[in-house]
């Protein structure tokens, strides 16, 4: 390995250059997709449609911000789908019971945070692989949400404020999109420019080294689990508001969409590597595909097939990039 050091400044070959810019590739892909779809269906560029895409993206992106940090810290949370359904049910129920939207929203978000906390405790204290721990958590949440409420909880008092959470606008933009933009910006700054962000990378890249450097990896991981949980709770609340009801059946498969988007964005499953910009592009690409398939009236089953291919291809390109960097 030491011999490699002297090859370091070497300029990569052509394909290497192309693939060395993961985010550039994603950006080009995104533009190409938009272009192709809009050629076939001009409605793609309608304001309504763009807002629809942004709104859908925002739900995924909020959780993806947390998930990106988790993957960078070399952990994962597959319970987000089940957790957001439960959080929505809790939020609606508390809103109904207290007639306070604020309390309801807080309850939903805190519920998500609580799930994140428990996930974090299981992973850091019991040291169970987070993949398994959060699959188990997913099962438990799916079961217990029905112990909590067997029915979808309706917006009983018709709090308009509650509905506004998802359908309201700030200027020309839907509220969820604005909220997402703010959260994304915060996440971006935290990850890029703060000590906390550095520690997240450090813990994922080499946990022991981080600990020897006076960092407490368990705390960092706990924190990221909790953040992911809180963000999941928030999405649960927004989705609940969007559906005007807390649906225990919501969120099935949501975790896979989020993980897929994050991976597509170039974040490594083994930790220590990844960016939020990549995640943003990953989310947008997946959601534009989803939207495009409907707009083009293609077989909706392709909504599963195409992302499947794209994830594999993107990972392969990423691999080529790493190879061209290394050799």
């Amino acid at each position: 390995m030491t011999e490699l050091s002297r090859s370091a400044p070497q300029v990569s070959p052509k394909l290497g250059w192309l693939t060395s810019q993961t985010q550039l590739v994603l950006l080009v892909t995104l533009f190409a997709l938009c272009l192709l779809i809009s050629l076939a269906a001009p409605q793609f560029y309608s304001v309504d449609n763009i807002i629809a895409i942004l709104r859908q993206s925002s739900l995924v992106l909020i959780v993806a911000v947390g998930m990106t940090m988790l993957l960078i810290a070399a952990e994962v949370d597959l319970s987000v789908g089940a957790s957001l359904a439960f959080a929505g049910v809790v939020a609606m129920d508390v809103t109904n019971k207290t007639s306070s939207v604020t309390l309801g929203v807080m309850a939903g978000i805190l519920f998500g945070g609580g799930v994140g906390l428990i996930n974090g405790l299981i992973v850091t204290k019991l040291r169970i692989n987070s993949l398994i721990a959060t699959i188990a958590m997913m099962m438990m949440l799916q079961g217990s949400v029905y112990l909590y409420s067997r029915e979808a909880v309706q917006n009983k008092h018709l709090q308009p404020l509650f509905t506004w959470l998802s359908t309201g606008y700030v200027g020309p933009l839907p509220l969820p999109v604005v909220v997402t933009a703010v959260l994304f910006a915060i996440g971006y700054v935290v990850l890029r420019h703060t000590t906390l962000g550095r520690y997240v990378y450090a813990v994922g890249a080499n946990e022991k080294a981080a600990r020897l450097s006076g960092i407490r990896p368990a705390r960092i991981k706990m924190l990221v689990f909790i953040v992911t949980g809180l963000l999941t709770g928030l999405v649960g609340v927004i989705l609940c508001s969007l559906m005007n009801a807390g649906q225990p059946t919501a969120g099935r498969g949501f975790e896979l969409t989020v993980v897929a988007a994050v991976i597509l964005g170039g974040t490594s499953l083994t930790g220590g590597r990844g960016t939020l910009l990549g995640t943003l592009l990953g989310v947008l690409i997946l959601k534009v595909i989803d939207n495009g398939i409907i707009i083009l009236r293609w077989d909706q089953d392709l909504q599963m097939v195409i992302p499947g291919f794209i994830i594999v291809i993107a990972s392969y390109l990423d691999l080529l990039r790493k190879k061209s960097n290394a050799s």
Partner: protein
Amino acid sequence: MPQSLEARVDRVAPIPRLAAMFRRNETVLLLVLVALLVFFTIGSPTFMTTRNITNVLGQASIAMIAAVGLGMLVIAGEIDVSIGSLVGAVALPLVVIMNATGSLELGIISALVFALAIGAVNGYLSAYLGINSLIVTLGSMFVIRGGIYIYTGQKAIPDDLALESFYQIGNGRLLGMIPYPALVALAVFAVFSYMMGHRRFGRQLYAVGGDAEVARLAGYNVRQSKFIAFVLCSLFAGVSGILLSSRLGSAVHVSGLGFEFQVVAAVVLGGVSLAGGIGSLGGVALGVLILAFLSNGLGMLNLATEWQQVITGLIIIGAVGLDELRRRRG
């Protein structure tokens, strides 16, 4: 040969047997299983009957066959989450060919060839191109399931000819007692348990999963080993899919949804480390049985499904947590 060096051969310290037993993950799992059996026997009069036990064994065998394959793959340091989709997908060539030719054998062969092909693609992308197997198989999970939906138009394909042999492989019982799938599972388990413990093939998978670079330096073809593990994993998922298809009497487009989670949970519960190189098929088999008896027994106690999910989740966390604790204590 210099004499002086011959002397101290027998320095092997005797291992305290009982303590060693408890240090083994399988023993703990076996105790958990026995405890569950005792508990359910007390809780429900119909639980400990030949009928019910053979019934559960039949049910568990579908997951067992796939879990043997996945267990070996995880031991080799890789994972395949597309097996759920594959279990659903193999039923298509099976039933379509069977309907067209009237031959169960041809159907089975084409199903297995299909499974092999999927395994080869997963294996090639992961072992030879080096793409993370979780990503590859997450991708193929989506692609295969979407493909099933597109091909079938989201409708099940019935077994038009109602072949008796097709019905029997999944539903029949030897001497009216032991379900055929259980025999298949037992055979697969026995053969590959032996392979993993007593053949170069199995040790190679352990070595490759334990440390791929070391295995390569020891003269193993790492890529080939992993590739074979992928193919076997798909092949066994294919066998599971064939038996399941027989139990369902058709190719059901939604069959196998979530199956991968069940099997991964069983494999991990069985003490196989997702990092590779650690675990045994005996543990995997116990993991499958624990989950199967848990589901059956909790049903017998007339516990609502939601409680079953919660309890299963807790048991997975508990068992894996205990195992982790045990390992840390060394």
